[in-house]
């Protein structure tokens, strides 16, 4: 709590100093040369307490986001960056450039070059085809979805029809997903047998070269009553495959890991269709060349194609209620019994949200439930707009289960409070 109060004292006056009167748009000033520029952003601080013993602080950080745009008609520029102080995960502290891109938009095409976040797909909180921008799981999935995506250095070119958009993406520099490591409280590793000794080599990442580029193409149709899209992504797996060699000495099993990223081809399909108060969504992707972990330390990961799918429905019954339900699954093609994952895995998600008091208070709850493992992650949240600019949020991250994707974080269940100031 000391950090929280400290962060508040730092963040809020600093915002006022940067944005006196909370009015950033330069066109309202007398300095016309500033007219193309605008500066916006937010400052927030979050503090949490672990609900399990020892009930210590689990998340404690303050962040300032600045976003600057420059509109020169022919050319539009966007730059965003973060300044963060993280009292729990020291590696996260510091300055970080988020996006920095230039865009030219013509009537029938547009081009965006630079560091950018690219989001695909119809799914909510689940990644099926949405793998262009790699995820940052430094705090598992407890961060808001927009904070989990990392930008990529890319060229995005779109051909713009009235109803059909064709998108080409070239990513010359590989970016890997970020997993929690070291002292990070979210770096939870599964227990090993006492007679195992592990050595981890440096991860082999693809070097930057033309042949190591990632390329994607997507055709999307926005029709009356139906959205459709098909995509092809020639990429690298954002997560490395933990290849291994093993040998034994004096009853000790030595495992030498050599993590390496592999090529993937991902073929995707998306659609959504409204009907009355509902919008039905579906998304599927076929991953060619995906490596899967085995359940034995002596067996190298196996290469098996993977089919991921999702069906969902959004329901807006009125009176400021909204309900989103999704069923999603993974199917490993030509399954091998040595694999750690099951041949078919499925999960449901449910998000219920209600706005109250003239939309000043939003109460919501997002549930992920793993149907195979019986594990769950529940994120209730209350967001109160104290003013147009200042929001006070309360919430919790509740993990239930054993050793699975959610259960392994059970001891990291937390309640949190957050203050966010937008300008």
């Amino acid at each position, binding site marked *: 709590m000391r950090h929280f109060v400290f962060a508040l004292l730092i963040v809020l006056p600093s915002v006022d100093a940067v944005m006196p009167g909370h009015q950033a748009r330069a066109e309202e000033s007398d300095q016309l040369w500033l007219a193309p520029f605008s500066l916006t952003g937010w400052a927030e601080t979050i503090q949490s307490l672990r609900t399990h013993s020892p009930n210590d602080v689990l998340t404690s950080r303050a962040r300032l986001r600045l976003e600057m745009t420059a509109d020169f008609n022919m050319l539009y520029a966007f730059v965003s960056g973060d300044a963060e102080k993280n009292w729990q995960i020291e590696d996260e502290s510091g300055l970080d450039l988020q996006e920095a891109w230039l865009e030219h938009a013509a009537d029938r095409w547009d081009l965006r070059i630079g560091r950018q976040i690219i989001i695909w797909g119809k799914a909510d909180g689940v990644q099926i085809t949405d793998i262009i921008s790699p995820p940052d799981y430094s705090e598992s999935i407890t961060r808001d979805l*927009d904070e989990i995506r990392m930008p990529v250095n890319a060229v995005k070119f779109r051909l713009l029809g009235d109803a059909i958009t064709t998108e080409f993406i070239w990513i010359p520099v590989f970016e890997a997903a970020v997993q929690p490591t070291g002292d990070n409280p979210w770096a939870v590793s599964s227990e090993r047998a006492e007679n195992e000794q592990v050595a981890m080599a440096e991860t082999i990442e693809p070097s930057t070269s033309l042949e190591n580029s990632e390329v994607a193409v997507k055709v999307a149709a926005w029709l009356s009553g139906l959205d459709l899209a098909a995509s092809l992504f020639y990429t690298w797996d954002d997560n490395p495959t933990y290849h291994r060699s093993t040998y034994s000495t004096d009853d000790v099993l030595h495992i030498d890991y050599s993590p390496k990223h592999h090529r993937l081809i991902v073929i995707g399909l998306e659609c959504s269709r409204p009907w*009355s108060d509902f919008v039905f969504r579906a998304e599927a992707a076929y991953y060619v060349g995906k490596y899967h972990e085995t359940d034995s330390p002596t067996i190298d990961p196996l290469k098996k194609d993977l089919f991921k799918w999702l069906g969902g429905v959004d329901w807006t019954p009125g009176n400021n209620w909204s309900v989103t339900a999704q069923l999603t699954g993974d199917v490993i093609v030509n399954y091998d019994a040595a694999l750690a994952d099951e041949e078919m895995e499925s999960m449901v998600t449910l998000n219920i949200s209600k706005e109250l008091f003239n939309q000043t208070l939003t109460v919501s709850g997002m549930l992920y439930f793993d149907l195979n493992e019986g594990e769950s992650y529940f994120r209730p949240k209350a967001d109160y707009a104290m003013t147009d*600019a200042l929001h006070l949020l309360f919430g919790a991250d509740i993990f239930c289960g054993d050793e699975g994707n959610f259960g392994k974080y059970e001891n990291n269940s937390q309640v949190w409070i957050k203050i966010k100031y937008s300008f």
Partner: protein
Amino acid sequence: MQQIIQKLPSVQAFLFLLLMSFIPPPGHADTTPTGLAIMTRVDDRPDGEDRKSLMTMTLINKNGRKRIREVRNFSKDFGKDKKSVMVFLKPADVKETAFLSWEYDDPSREDDKWLYMPALKKVRRISGSSKNEYFMGSDFTYDDMGDRNVEEDTHTLLAEESVDGHDCWKVESIPVDPEDMYTRKILWINKDADMIVKAEYYDKDGLLKIYRALDFIQQDGFWTLLKSEMDDVVRQHKTVMEMAKTEYDTGVKDSLFRVSTIQRGNIR
């Protein structure tokens, strides 16, 4: 008429006059239009082929606390259908959120709507029938703001009255759909401008909201609303809506109303 009567026998003349007494005199139908005709004129009031404006909403709660919403509007007619884009400028946390709608004249055809959310950098399809939702915490529903088809209500002319110095038709509109959030509306329509200058919204418990057009002018030959308010008498909450920088027929490009445009995240 006199010549015809003189040629008829007296009994026949009497019957003829009796018959004629049931026929309204010429021109009577033109001076007293039906409720439907009045509301159709309101709906069809000329407003150019395309239009753009800057809308500011001031939300005032019962304690006098104010919240501001600012939205840039663009719309264009495509035959009898209309496409529009709203770009949210304030409050800051929803800045650059864009709402695209393709509204169809045919009431049996569901409107198409998409929302671009800058935080998620993503466009998502939203259901076309969320017309009874309140717009950005204001006291206006999407329907109140003009999305509603004339055929969705039955309209009855009640009287001719003067409201705030305006010579008005008083029309009662009752939703065809019994599940509608309002049970009835009483509307006062300025006869010259074909514009609603006052409206009372009722639900099953009685009076819910009162709308007033506070200021409107004729600009470029089109009646233009400058300021209006919606007073929710139940929640004791009020929204004042002001329109500025309204322009007509400026040649807004068709491309503005594509999904790919709002997907860009910066409407220009």
